[in-house]
C-alpha cells in the first residue's frame, strides 16, 4: 500500500472510517514526512507533534466508540501562520510576533478542530502576507517542491509548498490580492479564494480588511471543496461574514458536467508580459472546456487595466491602519532602553520588528491617506474599485463564470525580483480584480509550461456567493485533464 502521505483527503478520510489505517498512523506518516523533507522546503515554521497526535487519537477513539465522524475527520492540514491558534506560536511571518502564543483560536482553526481535522502546525508566509514569493518572511524563504531554487508563490507559499510537497494533503491560506491562487498556480495545486464574507476573518491577522479572505489548498478540486465547506458559513464574530448558507461545493465538484455553461475569457488578462508557455496551456484548456460542452465567449473588462494601481493604494492604506496595532505595548516585541518615551519605544520596536516590504507598504499607505493626497490617491483608487466591480457585474450578466491565466509567469528564481517591488507586484495582475470586487476565484493546474516544465494555473472567477460554479468548472476540467495526462500533475514533480 502507498504511504498515507500520497493519498488525497477523500482517500484518507475513507481509509480511516473503514479502519484500513488509524488517524494516528496517518498523522505520524505526515509528521515523519515533515521531519524528513522540511529542511529542503522551509514550509513549516512550527510542527505541533503533540497536538496533532492527540487530535488524531481522539478521532480514533470516536471511531472505536462507533460515533459519527465528519467527512474530514482525521485528515491532516497545514495552517498558514496568519491564523491564531490557542497556545501555538503565531508569527504572521514577522519577527515582531516571534514567540507570541495567542490566547484564542481563529474561527477557521476552531472549525477545522470541530471537524476532527489534524492540525500539523504553522506554515511560512510573506511577512504579514505582503508579497508574492514568501521571500519577505522574517524566517527565510520557502522553496518550491518543483525546483528548490524557485519560489512557491506567496504570500501563502508555505501552504502551497506543504501540499505540493506531500507534507499535508490540505492547507489553509489567505488571499488579499492573489495570495492563495498564485501560489497554487506555481506549485501545481488547487487554491480557492472564496467570495468576500464567505469564510470568517475572526482571528486571521488582518492585512487589508476589505480584501482578505481565507481559503483552501488541496491536490484535487474535490478535496478543496471539502475543506472550503468545513470552514465556510456565517460567524457572528466577523461583522462582514455573510449571513446565508454556503452553496454545496462538494456536489458541484462531483458533478463533472459543464454542458450549457457560458464561460467568458477576459480579454485584458493576456498579452504583453505573459509567458508564452502560460498562454499555450491556457488556450489549450479553453479548447478543452469547449469540447466539454461549455460555450466560450470573449469578454472585455477594460477597468482591469487599472486594478493593479488601485490595489497598491487600497491595500497599503488599509495595512497602514491595521498594522498600527503592532506597537509593542500589549503583545509581541518591545524595544525599550528604559529611558524613552512611548513614541520612541513604538518607533524603535517597529523599526526592528518589521521587514522592508512591510515598512514600504505602511509608508505608502500613510502617504496615500494623508491630507492633501487622500483624494488623488486613495479616493481615486476607490473609484477605480467601483469601475472594476461594475465590469464584473456586467460580465456576469452574460456569462456564468470568467476565466484567465492565474499568473502571467511560472515560478521564478528565489532572489530574482526581491529588490524590485514593482516587478514583484506585477505577479498579481490577474488575481487582484477578484479581491477588489469581492467575488470568488479558483486556480487549478492545467499543465507545464514549454520553456521550463513548471506548473501553469487557470483561474476561474464566479459571482458573489456562487463559488459552487468554481468547483463545477474546476471539477470537470480536472477530470478531463487527468484523462488526457493519465496521472495527476504532481506525479511529474521531482521526488524530494
Amino acid at each position, binding site marked *: 500500500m502507498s504511504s498515507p502521505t500520497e493519498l488525497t483527503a477523500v482517500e484518507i478520510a475513507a481509509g480511516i472510517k473503514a479502519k484500513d489505517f488509524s488517524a494516528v498512523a496517518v498523522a505520524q506518516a505526515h509528521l515523519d514526512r515533515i521531519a524528513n523533507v522540511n529542511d529542503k522546503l522551509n514550509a513549516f515554521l512550527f510542527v505541533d507533534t503533540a497536538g496533532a497526535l492527540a487530535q488524531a487519537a481522539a478521532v480514533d477513539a470516536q471511531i472505536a466508540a462507533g460515533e459519527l465522524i465528519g467527512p474530514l475527520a482525521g485528515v491532516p492540514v497545514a495552517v498558514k501562520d496568519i491564523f491564531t491558534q490557542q497556545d501555538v506560536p503565531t508569527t504572521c511571518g514577522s519577527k515582531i510576533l516571534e514567540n*507570541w*502564543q*495567542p*490566547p*484564542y483560536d481563529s474561527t477557521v482553526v476552531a472549525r477545522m478542530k470541530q471537524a476532527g481535522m489534524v492540525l500539523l502546525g504553522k506554515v511560512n508566509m510573506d511577512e504579514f502576507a505582503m508579497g508574492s514569493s514568501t521571500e519577505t518572511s522574517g524566517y527565510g524563504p520557502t522553496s518550491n517542491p518543483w525546483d528548490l531554487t524557485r519560489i512557491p508563490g506567496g504570500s501563502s507559499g508555505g501552504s502551497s509548498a506543504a501540499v505540493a510537497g506531500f507534507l499535508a494533503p490540505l492547507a489553509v491560506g489567505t488571499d488579499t490580492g492573489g495570495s492563495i491562487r498564485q501560489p497554487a498556480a506555481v506549485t501545481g495545486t488547487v487554491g480557492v479564494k472564496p467570495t468576500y*464574507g464567505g469564510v470568517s476573518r475572526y482571528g486571521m491577522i488582518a492585512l487589508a480588511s*476589505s*480584501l482578505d479572505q481565507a481559503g483552501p489548498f488541496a491536490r484535487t478540486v474535490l478535496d478543496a471543496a471539502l475543506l472550503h465547506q468545513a470552514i465556510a458559513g456565517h460567524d*457572528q464574530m466577523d*461583522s*462582514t461574514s*455573510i449571513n446565508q448558507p454556503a452553496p454545496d461545493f462538494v456536489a458541484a465538484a462531483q458533478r463533472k458536467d459543464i454542458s450549457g455553461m457560458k464561460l467568458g475569457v477576459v480579454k485584458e488578462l493576456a498579452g504583453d508580459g505573459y509567458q508564452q508557455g502560460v498562454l499555450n496551456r491556457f488556450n489549450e484548456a479553453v479548447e478543452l472546456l469547449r469540447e466539454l460542452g461549455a460555450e466560450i465567449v470573449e469578454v472585455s473588462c477594460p*477597468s482591469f487595466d*487599472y486594478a493593479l*494601481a*488601485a490595489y*497598491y*493604494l487600497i491595500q497599503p492604506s488599509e495595512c497602514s491602519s491595521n498594522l*498600527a496595532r503592532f*506597537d509593542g*505595548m*500589549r*503583545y*509581541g*516585541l*518591545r524595544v*525599550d532602553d528604559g529611558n524613552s*518615551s*512611548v*513614541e*520612541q519605544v*513604538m*518607533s*524603535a520596536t*517597529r*523599526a526592528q520588528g*518589521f521587514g522592508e516590504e512591510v*515598512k*514600504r507598504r*505602511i*509608508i*505608502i499607505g*500613510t*502617504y496615500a491617506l494623508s491630507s492633501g493626497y487622500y483624494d*488623488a*490617491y486613495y*479616493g*481615486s*483608487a*476607490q*473609484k*477605480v474599485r*467601483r*469601475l472594476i*466591480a461594475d465590469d464584473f457585474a456586467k460580465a456576469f450578466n452574460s456569462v456564468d463564470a470568467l476565466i484567465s491565466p492565474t499568473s502571467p509567469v511560472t515560478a521564478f528564481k528565489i532572489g530574482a525580483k526581491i529588490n524590485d517591488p*514593482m516587478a514583484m*507586484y506585477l505577479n498579481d495582475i490577474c488575481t487582484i480584480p477578484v479581491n*477588489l*470586487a*469581492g467575488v470568488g476565484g479558483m486556480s487549478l493546474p492545467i499543465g507545464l509550461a514549454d520553456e521550463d516544465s513548471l506548473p501553469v494555473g487557470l483561474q476561474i472567477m464566479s459571482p458573489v456567493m456562487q463559488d459552487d460554479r468554481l468547483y463545477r468548472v474546476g471539477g470537470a476540467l480536472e477530470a478531463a485533464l487527468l484523462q488526457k495526462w493519465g496521472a495527476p500533475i504532481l506525479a511529474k514533480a521531482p521526488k524530494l
Partner: protein
Amino acid sequence: MSSLSRDELRAIADLARISLTEAELDRFSDQLSVILDSVAKVQEVVTPEIKPMSHALEMTNVYRPDEIGESLTAAQALSGAPARQDDRFKVPRILEEE
C-alpha cells in the same frame, strides 16, 4: 513624475511610528517614488460622478443581541504582554512630569 524627498519620507515615517536608517531613507525614497508614479495611473480614468467603493459588502451596521458571553480572562489577555504590573499592561512613560 511623483517623487518623495528624504524629508517628506522621514515625516511620513514619523507619522507611521517607524524609525528609518539613513540607508533605508535613500533606498525607500527611490523605490517609493517609482511605486507612487505607477499607482498614480488611477487618476487617468476617474471622473467626479463615479461613487467611491470602500468595501465589497456595502453594509452599514451589523448588530447582535447585547448579551454577556465568555471572554478572555485577565491572565489570558496579559499572556503576551512585554511588561505588566498587577492585572495591567505596563507601558513606557506617556506624559512628561510636571
